């Protein structure tokens, strides 16, 4: 078999790349090792109901008229109409540093400004200077690492506010510890605070089906349960892949969304990328009946919280770091149809190494997983109020769950801390897209796929 373009990975970056290419040249093939598409943002069934694996909210909300906004550019590139998506904006969200301060924000940025002016009056002038900087900064121009923390602190002169600004941006897309690159900070600040959050009216499955149907409508092909054993090369040219089944598929161009180190492994090459600690996460879903009333969960969409004296975003020494994290109420988006259940999702940083150790003994692993759900519940109850008695279903994903289903090394959802922004890994016709290219979130992942196709492949083929 020979295709013009072969894509490794059917996550959102791979799907968007495939769809972009198939609009013009239909014979694309996506290879996905799992039985379903979506990668990190997929779904599974329990108790006859669909559960989303990764989706909390989609960032980068944009009004239809704003043509240059990432979301609208993406939809134009994929020839998808906004109305096909059924967008629902967040109600509002909160950054809560318990015992210290809280800041509310919504898709109306002026709320966030008012909150900062009210609660951090002496930093407000600095905050407006920071906004000017963010507005003028080009995060896509090649640049060395600049510490976002230092830039923010220089403007705000307030450690607490600096941490509170960084907390949501780190939890929703930083692969590095306790700091961010300024460019990444600017991208995430725009995506979360200036643009805002939304979700589709249905589930992630509807979004994946929409993309898949458009793609297949152009003639594109998908093969699930197809795991690549190795990439076949001739010098710096890739020829195709060999699947674990032994089958060979040849191609003119290849796009790998499998991660940088993972791709080098398939090439039989050692990665020259600097090794930095990868960040693992645990997530627990608590399903509760709609009748359960919790004040803070009534209309908050997402709560980014910290309960410690200082905010620490790094790989924990213990199995899970419960001191900070994210609490998401996926039903709290505007005008969603009412459902027969509600969810509360909690996320914390976790140690892959320790989970791996626990997994040497199945019963130890399961009991640590139970303990994790209970401890996370206790943290959530301190913020939201009690709901332990009402829980009808509960499930916990560990870094090992994520690694198993998404093939992301060490279950690190934001991938390698070192990003390859231009997708060029030194081969003539193989490029990298997705998490390790550096765009994050659903809109970011899709733009990653589209931009690598545009930049490296459509202009050459």
């Amino acid at each position, binding site marked *: 078999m020979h295709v013009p373009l072969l894509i490794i990975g059917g996550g959102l970056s791979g799907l968007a790349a495939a769809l972009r290419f198939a*609009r*013009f040249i239909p014979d694309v093939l996506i290879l996905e090792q799992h039985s379903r598409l979506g990668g990190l943002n997929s779904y599974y069934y329990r108790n006859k109901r669909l559960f989303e694996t990764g989706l909390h909210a989609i960032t980068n909300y944009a009004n239809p008229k704003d*043509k*240059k906004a990432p979301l609208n*550019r993406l939809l*134009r*590139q994929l020839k998808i109409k906004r109305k096909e998506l059924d967008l629902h904006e967040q109600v509002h969200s909160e950054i809560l540093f318990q015992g210290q301060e809280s800041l509310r924000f919504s898709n109306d940025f002026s709320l966030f400004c008012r909150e900062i002016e009210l609660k951090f009056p002496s930093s407000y002038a600095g905050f407006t200077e920071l906004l000017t900087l963010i507005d003028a900064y080009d995060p896509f121009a090649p640049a060395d690492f600049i510490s976002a923390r230092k830039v923010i602190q220089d403007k705000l002169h307030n450690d607490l506010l600096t941490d509170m600004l960084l907390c949501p941006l780190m939890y929703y897309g930083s692969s590095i510890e306790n700091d961010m690159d300024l460019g990444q900070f600017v991208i995430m600040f725009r995506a979360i605070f200036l643009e805002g959050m939304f979700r589709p009216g249905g589930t992630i499955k509807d979004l994946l089906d929409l993309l898949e149907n458009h793609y297949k409508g152009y003639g594109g092909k998908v093969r699930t349960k197809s795991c690549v054993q190795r990439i076949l090369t001739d010098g710096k040219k890739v020829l195709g892949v060999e699947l674990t089944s032994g089958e060979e598929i040849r191609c003119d161009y290849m796009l790998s969304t499998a991660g940088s180190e993972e791709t080098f492994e398939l090439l039989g090459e050692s990665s020259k990328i600097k090794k930095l600690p990868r960040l693992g996460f645990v997530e627990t879903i608590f399903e509760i009946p709609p009748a359960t009333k919790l004040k803070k969960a009534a209309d908050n969409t997402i709560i980014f919280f910290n309960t410690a004296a200082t905010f620490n975003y790094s790989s924990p020494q213990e199995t899970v770091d419960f001191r900070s994290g994210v609490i998401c109420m996926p039903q709290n988006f505007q005008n969603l149809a009412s459902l027969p259940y509600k969810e509360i999702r909690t996320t914390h940083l976790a140690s892959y190494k320790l989970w791996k150790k626990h997994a040497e003994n199945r019963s130890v692993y399961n009991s640590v997983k139970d303990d994790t759900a209970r401890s996370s519940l206790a943290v959530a109850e301190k913020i939201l109020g009690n709901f332990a008695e009402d829980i009808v279903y509960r499930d916990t994903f560990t870094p090992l769950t994520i690694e198993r289903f998404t093939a992301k090394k060490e279950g690190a959802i934001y991938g390698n801390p070192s990003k390859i922004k231009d997708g060029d890994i030194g081969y003539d016709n193989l490029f990298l897209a997705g998490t390790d290219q550096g765009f994050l979130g659903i809109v970011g992942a899709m733009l990653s796929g*589209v*931009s690598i196709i*545009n930049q490296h492949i*459509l*202009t050459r083929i």
Partner: protein
Amino acid sequence: MTRDAIKDLVLEIIEDIDEDADFDTLESDKPLRDQLDLDSMDFLDIVMELRKRHKLQIPEEDYPELATLDSCVNYLEPLLKDA
């Protein structure tokens, strides 16, 4: 293809990219990019649509030739003379 037909073709492709594109005030000797709020990603769409519809291979170094509606017509006229 006549110059007018080429012009219509380009506008049709742009309309396909952005259904809200406003051609009423479009000046044919001014950059399309500024007037219609198009970015480089959108320009690639024009190139790829021309390829798909008329089997035209436009090399990357020629993309600047597509800057204005007039320059598009000038550039495409010899390429589409038999179309």
